[in-house]
């Protein structure tokens, strides 16, 4: 699933430059009359569209909830994730369906599913954004350099990136994490590494079309250095693409991270609240009718991925407008 998603997304990203170019030409057109105020107006208008988009509002609400859960899990939860829920007689309440005490039910060990879902947000919201930031940062540099310089350098790096993209991402992730151990650093680094290639390809395409535009030629003729042109002239015009790419990647990072955890490759304690791990540990019990310890963490994963993607879609639309 992850694999095809990444694949589709790359092709979607490839269309991006066209839109960016069109949008930029709009800007150029208006710039000829009242340059400064118009750009500000465009941004203001984009922001207005974004903030009014229902997708963005819903996505943000979901994400804000999970951020709060990861910052203050104890405030939102009713039990410790490793604590046994006990009945009035002090006995362990195991495999109980959702009820007044344990809102999402309990696991076969008597753990509160709701509290584990809340506590499970933190590890994901540490690793996924960190990996995304690294991937987007490195991918943008690689993409801009290849897109700007082109030639043999671009050929070599692009083929290399394509080689990486040709290997199913999750397979590569399993290989790397299994080899180097499932520590937090290794998992963060692995997801970041895997996402550099798709980010670089998208940014490269955007840079490629930007760098053929007149303002870049003008800057060259002014004798600006390549560094200046890339960072001061092109970057501001591809930043929209980068931001959208970052948001999309964040969704995939969450998904990849939980997939690895489902396969048993998660950092730290095996009893920690962890959505992917909880799904893996509890799904054999579905056959006995105990669906809640599996479904609720799975829904949590889905909600976070959907929330992030709603935001990404809304941003993309706003930038296009």
């Amino acid at each position, binding site marked *: 699933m992850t694999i095809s998603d990444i694949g589709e997304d790359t092709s979607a990203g490839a269309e991006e430059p066209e839109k960016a170019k069109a949008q930029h030409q709009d800007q150029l057109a208006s710039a000829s009359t009242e340059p400064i105020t118009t750009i500000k107006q465009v941004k203001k208008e984009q922001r207005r569209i974004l903030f009014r988009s229902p997708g963005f509002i819903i996505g943000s609400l979901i994400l804000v909830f999970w951020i709060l859960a990861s910052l203050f899990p104890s405030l939102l939860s009713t039990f410790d994730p*490793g*604590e*046994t829920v006990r009945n009035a007689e002090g*006995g*362990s309440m*195991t*495999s109980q369906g959702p009820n007044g005490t344990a809102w999402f039910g309990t696991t*076969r*060990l*008597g753990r509160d599913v709701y509290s584990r879902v809340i506590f499970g947000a933190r590890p994901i919201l540490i690793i996924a954004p960190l990996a995304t930031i690294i991937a987007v940062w490195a991918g943008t540099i690689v993409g801009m350099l290849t897109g700007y310089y082109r030639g043999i350098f671009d050929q070599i790096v692009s083929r290399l990136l394509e080689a990486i993209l040709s290997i199913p991402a999750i397979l590569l992730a399993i290989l790397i994490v299994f080899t180097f151990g499932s520590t937090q650093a290794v998992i963060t680094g692995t997801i970041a590494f895997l996402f550099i290639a798709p980010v670089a390809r998208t940014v490269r395409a955007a840079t490629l079309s930007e760098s053929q535009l007149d303002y870049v030629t003008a800057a060259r003729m002014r004798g600006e250095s390549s560094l200046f042109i890339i960072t001061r002239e092109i970057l501001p015009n591809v930043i929209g693409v980068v931001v959208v790419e970052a948001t999309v990647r964040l969704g995939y990072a969450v998904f990849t991270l939980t997939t690895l955890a489902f396969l*048993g490759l998660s950092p*730290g*304690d*095996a*009893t920690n609240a962890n959505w992917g791990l909880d799904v893996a*540990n509890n799904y*054999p*019990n579905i*056959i*006995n*009718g*105990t669906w809640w310890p599996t479904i609720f963490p799975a829904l949590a994963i889905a909600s976070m991925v959907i929330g992030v993607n709603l935001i990404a879609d809304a941003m993309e639309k706003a930038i296009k407008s």
Partner: protein
Amino acid sequence: MDNEAFDAIRRESSVLEKDLMDAYADNRITRRDFVRRGTILGVGAPVLGAVIAACGSDGSSTDTGAAAESGDDGGSDSGSDTETDSGSDTETDSGSEPEVAAETGGSILIGIAEGADLDPVNMLDFGTYSVCSSCFEYLVGLADDGSGGIGTLGLAESWAPNDDGTAWTFNLRSGVQWHDGSDLTAADVVGTIERMIEVGAGLAGVVSPGGAVATDDLTVTVNLDGPNGNFPVLMSIFNPQSLITPADYAAGTLLNDRPAGTGPWIFQDFDPTTFVVNFTANDNYWGGRPILDAITIQGFADPANRVAAMAAGEIDVIQEFSAVDGASLLTDDNFTLLQPPSSNHRQVYFNTQLPEGGPFTNNLVRQALGYTLDRQQIVDVVYAGFAIIANDHPVHPTLPFFDAGAVPQRTRDIPAAMALLEEAGFADGVSDIIQVGQTSFSPDLAAIIQENAAEAGFDLQVNVTDNGTFYGEFWCTGASYGVDPESSGPGIPCGASSPLGIVDWGHRPTPDIFFGRALATDGDWNGSNYNSEAFNELFGQYQAAVTVDEQRAAASAIMAQLHEDTPALYPAFFDYLGGHGNTVTNVEVTALGQFNLLNTARTA
């Protein structure tokens, strides 16, 4: 008590038998224990019945009464205590439900845990046990009363020790044929024993090469290195690697390469990729032809899939399942639960030697962890109630030489645990990692221990790895401590075991293997690196003990020693759960996954 009859029987008996009878006459052991212990010594059921009658427990007891009595320690260990000595019991356990109309012929599909190479003397898992034991047989088999204990459904018709228990003589059944038509002889048994000694298989240190001698074609005398009152158990179905194989077998010969056997089922074919094995009925079986025409055994890698297949009726018999995974089966009206006697347990081992100065090298810290455990919670949650509390030693409470008064039961006592930690110099708490493999129950047990121990100041992490990694890196790796097992030469077998971990142990009718392989200093599965001269000496005494009183004294001393040293925690003994759909009748399974399907039939 009928002294005259008792003395008459006693006069005819060997020294060991006399001791056993005296112990029973003096009420030092229960009738149940008397029957069980008598069976190991090779005393026939008529004699046992006569002694019971002579001692007049209720006058009406006959030999069948004695046999049924030994049956009710089968069933569930947890429930058996309430029905001791009632004398009126019938065979309630397995295989004897009221006869439903049964068909002859037909075949059934049995779901087992996926096994490994079909190597009878080196096999290590339940799946392979059940396959190899379908066509091969043991010297000492199951009891013929369905009790799940040991008895005469094996290749030996009778057996007896010499006076001091240093030599045991087994009389083979006559007229037993291998599947190729040749006769089973004492040479096959001697060859098997030699192979077992060669690879270990529970006989290393008990018998030396050349110790087994074929006195004639049907008699084998085994001369032991020292006295051993439980030797028949080592040649029984409960030492699974002791299957009697042809004299031309070698250690490492696979069943599928050299099909053979004396048992009720003839090996047909084996597909290692799907782990499906086919057998057909042996028309010339010494115990009579099986009712079914054929059986197919199929391995399942995932226990949950096995349960799902059973629930859906895709398989007729399920070898084993956990009460938690199989909760739906327990309430299924179309399913018959089988619970053979079981001393299955999970051992929480500590590396008692290394790292130097580590918290768990101190016995007070180990005791402290023992006092944090809520054993009832473990029984209720991990085993869904299908278990009994244990007391940090591997002696099952139903054993004849178990003395409940030897050591007090360890219960959850947080202040005591904290006091012990303080005394040991770890008042600020202890943090470490519990290493567990992907075995059923172990990860759940680790999670409960983590929660229980936290209150006393133990900060324990749980690290779950696949079984290969667990056995290869954290248990008995054969390397020295802190050394990569792959790059270093052989060291102490378990020198490199992790400071703390949980390992799985299957059922044995006596704790000899639990003592000798898991706790003796040179034991090859001594994950604790337990190095106690006192224990080794007591274990020697226990092995040499052939009378009940001696065994009880030695076992009690061992329990006290283990209570003090706590090289490992034994939180619970759990029940073995197997069963079959109501499409078949008369299935018997042991707590090591072996089947007796001789009388199994499809219901009409």
